[in-house]
């Protein structure tokens, strides 16, 4: 029954989203109030039916209804409840349904918020409806999550054990809230081009959705990186894997868009540029969806290698990007040019921010697509090494971080550079002290580490100064607090990356019980391996006693788990952290006679990488919260 309910709900959703697209676009014409009302109703209905379909699939997973093929292939009765739920999006069909669910959620919120006027909202719902209709069709024809299996198997095939992890259970929904959330900015930008008279309103209308998408992307990427760190057992946090790049590119563009649209809202500068960024952001999301879901890439995200699906996504991708760019080429010349500003102004800083971020996106895009293009054209198989990305990404971000503190302290249109300098002197002092301290204390001596610390303290110091100055002037609003937090978060992440890459220590050895392994100033005594039983796995659990300069710190228990349902082996690393530094221990393979290989890292400052990401997201959240709160207060007297 569940399967039929889901399938029928999806068909209704397709009908409603088609109505939303047609009526929404028609409602963009002056005086078409009737069509606008229809589009709004259809958008809410679309959300309701997709939610019903998504609920039905979730119910199928939770109750282990193996008559649904998707459940049978990806679930198992012994799985803990949280992984039964996360199994819904741990496969191709379910994850596409989550994609469309998030899209319909944003549609519904756009309808309820009705920002930027009735015509703009209607046109934006129309564009959103077109994207939604294409993806519902894609699901129904190539990736039906409710397909039946007959006879019904007695037990499911289980979920890839690597995905059975609390961090990863939340990672896909977060990433999709971001990825797909960029469709709202895209829809408003396209709507501004369609109506032709919303050069500034669209940016203001799209802002909360832009922010929500950015926050979710930031958290999604942070969670993904954290997962890779503690699950894969390599001790690294970022691998420049194409799938990571696919999420990083929309984030970089969304960050650029958040900045450029500030100017667009405020002074009308960068009007066309912001429109282009909004189009580019969602286009990169679609490219990411294609890369991850088509099976052209080898990764944990490539669930199914079905070339037909890849081709369909590629066509939708081409239609969306081509259509939006054609619309831009046709309508943009009719829009007025941007507003003027002096070289020393906040606009100039935002411009530089955008140029650097766009350079970074180009670097990642080329590095990711070049091997695929070469393979498609010549059959030659290559990959692009991490040094390529590091070599080009680092200078762009150094320049960006040097400039970050100037942005918030220059005024719009015509700023005062000497004044900004004077205000930043304490931050410059903090940067100098940090750099010298690193050179004096930290071993091995590293100029790169000293430079990175100076840069981080320059940015964090400037954020602190901004905070105090604005507080004393009683000018601390959502906007300035957001910029303080987001920029400080960037500095914190830089500290973490510096520590974990430049100061990491590593040791690998094969140990018999009683033997020790030394890494940095820790010594690890291997006390053998004991069997342990999990809910749906059996584990070999190592007992390792850790001491730091002869002081007993405790015991860590890294595991090797075998999941019989999936027939797969997965390591479970142990990380002991004091908030500033991680001791990271992974159990390798058995070498006979009770001997095991053990790998250990000391990653100084590693926790700061993800702390910084969380602080950045908090900055976005503060802005979003203030914006929503102000709006509610404003609405209240009218009711």
């Amino acid at each position, binding site marked *: 029954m569940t399967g039929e309910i889901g399938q029928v709900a999806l068909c209704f959703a397709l009908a409603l989203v088609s109505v939303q697209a047609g009526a929404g676009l028609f409602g963009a014409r002056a005086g078409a109030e009737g069509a606008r009302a229809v589009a709004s109703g259809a958008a809410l209905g679309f959300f309701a039916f997709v939610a019903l379909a998504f609920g039905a699939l979730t119910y199928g997973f939770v109750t282990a209804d193996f008559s649904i093929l998707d459940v049978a292939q990806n679930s198992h009765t012994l799985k803990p409840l949280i992984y039964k739920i996360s199994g819904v999006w741990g496969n191709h069909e379910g994850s596409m349904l989550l994609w469309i669910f998030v899209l319909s959620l944003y549609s519904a919120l756009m309808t309820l918020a009705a920002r930027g006027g009735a015509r703009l909202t209607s046109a934006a719902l129309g564009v959103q409806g077109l994207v939604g209709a294409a993806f519902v069709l894609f699901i129904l024809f190539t990736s039906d999550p409710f397909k039946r299996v007959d006879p019904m198997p007695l037990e499911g095939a289980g979920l890839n054990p690597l995905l059975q992890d609390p961090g990863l259970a939340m990672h896909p929904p977060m990433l999709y809230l971001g990825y797909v959330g960029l469709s709202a900015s895209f829809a408003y930008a396209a709507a501004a081009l369609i109506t032709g008279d919303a050069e500034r309103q669209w940016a203001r209308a799209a802002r909360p959705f832009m922010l929500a998408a950015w926050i979710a992307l930031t958290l999604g990427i942070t969670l993904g990186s954290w997962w890779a760190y503690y699950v894969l057992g390599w001790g690294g946090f970022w691998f420049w894997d194409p799938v990571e790049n696919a999420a990083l590119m929309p984030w970089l563009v969304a960050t650029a868009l958040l900045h450029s649209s500030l100017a667009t809202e405020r002074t009308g500068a960068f009007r066309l540029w912001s429109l282009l960024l909004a189009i580019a952001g969602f286009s990169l999301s679609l490219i990411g969806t294609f890369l991850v879901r088509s099976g052209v890439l080898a990764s944990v995200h490539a669930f199914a290698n079905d070339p037909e699906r890849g081709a369909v996504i590629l066509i939708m991708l081409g239609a969306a990007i081509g259509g939006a760019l054609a619309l831009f080429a046709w309508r943009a010349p009719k829009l007025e040019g941007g507003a003027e500003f002096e070289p020393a102004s906040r606009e100039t800083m935002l411009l530089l921010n955008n140029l650097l971020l766009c350079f970074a996106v180009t670097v990642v895009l080329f590095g990711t697509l070049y091997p695929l293009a070469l393979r498609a054209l010549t059959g030659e198989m290559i990959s692009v090494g991490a040094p390529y990305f590091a070599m080009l990404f680092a200078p762009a971000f150094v320049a960006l971080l040097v400039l970050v503190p100037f942005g918030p302290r220059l005024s719009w249109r015509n700023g005062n550079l000497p004044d900004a300098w004077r205000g930043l002197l304490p931050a410059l002092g903090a940067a100098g002290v940090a750099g010298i301290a690193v050179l004096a204390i930290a071993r091995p001596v590293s100029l790169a580490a000293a430079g990175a610390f100076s840069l981080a303290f320059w940015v964090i110091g400037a954020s602190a100064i901004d905070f105090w100055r604005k507080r004393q002037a009683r000018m601390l609003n959502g906007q300035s607090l957001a910029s303080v937090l987001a920029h400080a978060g960037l500095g914190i992440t830089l500290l973490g990356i510096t520590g974990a890459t430049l100061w990491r220590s590593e040791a690998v050895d094969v140990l018999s019980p009683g033997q020790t392994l030394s890494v940095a100033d820790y010594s690890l005594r291997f006390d053998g391996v004991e069997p342990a039983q999990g809910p749906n796995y059996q584990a070999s659990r190592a007992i390792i006693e850790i001491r730091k300069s002869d002081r007993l710190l405790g015991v860590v228990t890294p595991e090797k788990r075998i999941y019989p349902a999936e027939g797969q082996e997965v390591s479970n690393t142990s990380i002991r952290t004091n908030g500033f530094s991680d001791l990271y221990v992974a159990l390798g393979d058995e070498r006979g006679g009770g001997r095991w290989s053990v*790998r250990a890292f000391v990653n100084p400052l590693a926790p700061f990488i993800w702390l910084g990401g969380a602080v950045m997201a908090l900055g976005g959240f503060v802005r979003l919260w203030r914006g929503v709160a102000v709006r509610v207060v404003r609405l209240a007297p009218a009711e």
Partner: protein
Amino acid sequence: MTPRKRRRVAFAFALVVAGAGGAALVVAALKDNVLYFYSPSDIAAKHVAAGVDFRIGGLVKKGSVVKGPKARVRFVVTDGKASVPVSYDGVLPDLFREGQGVVALGALSPSHEFQATEILAKHDERYMPPEVVDALKRSGRWKEGE
């Protein structure tokens, strides 16, 4: 030219220069950091020089895995036609198995042993790296549905 126009032209010029510079950087960095993928047959045919980093892929030959001393692991990668000995110091990924596909990153030593710095982890046992599938197809050892 009005001052406003002059500034625009200067800005456009600066943008073009910056764009060209950025593109040159990307191309130069890309050229130096491309890693080629070779199957064992390719290595024999192309006379890959020692010390050059590349990726190798194929199947781990059955019975070839020798562990020790210490954390050292040696095994043979084969595509059915040719094979290459590989040595690696470190912890093997969970899905490393004899008879299964593997991709390793490293370089040949002067004695023609591939010294791996990284063994790429497969994420799912049902999954075979596309490069390996391709290499096996070329050597005629790939059977559909295997």
